[in-house]
């Protein structure tokens, strides 16, 4: 099984230097740019490869690039931004890449920049990733010294500058238009779309925001071609994916596997199954903005096209497992507390609705909930559904809630009938600190 993104990452957690990276073929594909691969050809290659965004949305990367105005009349400068905000709870895949092989991101950025003719790139990194920041800073310095950055690439006239932007910790900055405001030094609330960033983005210029893992795929596609890339996966979407798992399993961790691997394989074969003494009840397939999957869904291929919309979506593919020793209501309360705290406060339904949801869920845990509270939760899942709020944060918050109400209905009912939490570890942890 091929693992192009992670095969060279050191198991001991140390990073890879420029010299090591080059030795295993790193920066080699820049020569293809010099020998005549035009930006439009690169866009087409990535489209043919079927690369879909790894930030959670799964949008076709090549298609996104094709919206950027090109040619002599296009606005200048254009920007390419790596989204390394990675604050989605349960998600740690971009960190693995940036810490383990920082030059892969630098090279991916140069290529993506070339494809849309962007002369400047930013890596937007969450503030807590200090080790990633240190290693990326070193990698960028090495790449400048070696002439991959800051100098025209031989035979192309294309010159690319790359900066690292360390953020200061706020989940909404991962939303691409909020990220753009954050980079401009403004309060990071999302912007209205349209116009889309591909035409009007950073400082009003065409901008493409791409997830870190997405960008790591680009050099490999250029080196080995779109047919090879398709063969890596088991489904119609191309490539591998970093799958991760956390919760009470024997061996929590991450693995680069073919896209379309099932949750059962990750859980049983790679993570070694459930930990001693606990049983599986459900999982969130990719971060907490995705809907629960239960036993009946474990054999679905985990990719961007095989999960039926009524079941959910893949998200970031780093799953979180719910076991039978953990209260599903308490679990969802923890998620909603996160969303309420991280809501940017820009639009009313989200700013007011999420704390309300938290208070209702608290009433379940504390034994005060009635049937009316159950319907109130159902109603919130509708009020905060896609289309009712300014950005995707609130709808994301409703995905686990709505699916929990469906699959764990009896547990909610039991909280009402027994006036409290049957799992009742103290609920002190659920104090709201918003």
């Amino acid at each position: 099984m091929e693992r192009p993104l992670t095969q060279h990452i050191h198991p001991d957690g140390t990073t890879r230097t420029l010299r090591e990276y080059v030795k295993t073929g790193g920066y080699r594909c820049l020569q293809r740019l010099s020998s005549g691969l035009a930006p439009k050809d690169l866009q087409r290659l990535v489209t043919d490869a079927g690369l879909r965004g790894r930030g959670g949305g799964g949008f076709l990367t090549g298609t996104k690039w094709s919206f950027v105005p090109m040619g002599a009349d296009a606005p200048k400068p254009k920007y390419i931004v790596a989204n390394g905000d990675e604050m989605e709870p349960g998600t740690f895949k971009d960190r693995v890449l940036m810490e383990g092989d920082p030059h892969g991101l630098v090279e991916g950025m140069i290529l993506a920049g070339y494809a849309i003719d962007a002369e400047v790139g930013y890596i937007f990194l969450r503030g807590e990733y200090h080790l990633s920041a240190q290693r990326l800073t070193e990698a960028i310095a090495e790449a400048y010294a070696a002439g991959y950055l800051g100098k025209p690439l031989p035979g192309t006239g294309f010159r690319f500058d790359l900066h690292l932007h360390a953020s200061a910790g706020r989940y909404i900055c991962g939303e691409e238009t909020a990220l753009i405001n954050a980079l401009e030094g403004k309060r990071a609330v999302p912007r209205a779309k349209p116009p889309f960033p591909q035409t009007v983005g950073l400082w009003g210029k065409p901008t493409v925001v791409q997830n870190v893992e997405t960008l790591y795929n680009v050099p490999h596609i250029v080196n080995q071609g779109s047919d090879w890339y398709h063969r890596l996966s088991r489904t119609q979407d191309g490539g591998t994916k970093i799958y991760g798992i956390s919760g009470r399993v024997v061996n929590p961790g991450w693995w680069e596997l073919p896209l379309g691997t099932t949750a059962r394989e990750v859980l049983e074969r790679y993570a070694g199954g459930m930990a001693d003494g606990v049983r599986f009840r459900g999982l969130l397939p990719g971060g907490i903005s995705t809907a629960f999957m239960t036993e009946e869904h474990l054999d679905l291929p985990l990719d961007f096209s095989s999960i039926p919309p009524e079941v959910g979506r893949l998200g970031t593919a780093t799953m979180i497992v719910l076991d039978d020793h953990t209260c599903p209501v308490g679990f969802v309360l923890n998620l909603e507390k996160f969303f309420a705290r991280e809501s940017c406060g820009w639009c009313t339904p989200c700013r007011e609705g999420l704390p309300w949801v938290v208070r209702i869920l608290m009433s379940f845990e504390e034994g005060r909930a009635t049937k009316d509270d159950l319907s109130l939760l159902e109603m919130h899942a509708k009020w905060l559904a896609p289309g009712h709020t300014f950005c995707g944060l609130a709808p994301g918050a409703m995905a686990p809630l709505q699916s929990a109400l469906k699959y764990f209905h009896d547990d909610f009912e039991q909280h009402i009938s027994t006036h409290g939490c049957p799992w009742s570890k103290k609920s002190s942890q659920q104090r709201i600190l918003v």
Partner: protein
Amino acid sequence: MLSDTERRELEDAVKHYPDKRGATIDALLTIQRRRGWISDDTLLEIAQFLEITVEDVDSVATFYNLIFRKPVGRHVAFVCDSISCWIKGCEQVQEQINTLYNADLGQTSPDGRLTVLPIACLGQCERAPALMIDQDVYGDVTPEKIEQIVEKYK
């Protein structure tokens, strides 16, 4: 007044952006590293340097989890309270910190050594529960390990 070193650091930061204002977060983080927190006076100095209003700087400063608008202890312990760490018992970790250092969430220990804050998922979920002290991350934390971990932060 910004010191010469601070000014030099800010001058480096603004080079990365076509508009000085882009360096707002860099400026806040840089100065906070030296001064520990962001006071009203600091806001004004940053605003003057970036040639924007104090309100502009404060609207950014108050938005982020890692910018402190109040004084903090000599060290800051961030306890992850997101889902994977909650499943694995982050509240026991936090309670143990409170027991040992007399600082509940949002508080500073009476000796000024440690401020304890909750933080969103640290991206270390495979080794939950996770804890970050200043810039160092610890995984698979248990209440029993706390004393030994905190030991080196005087």
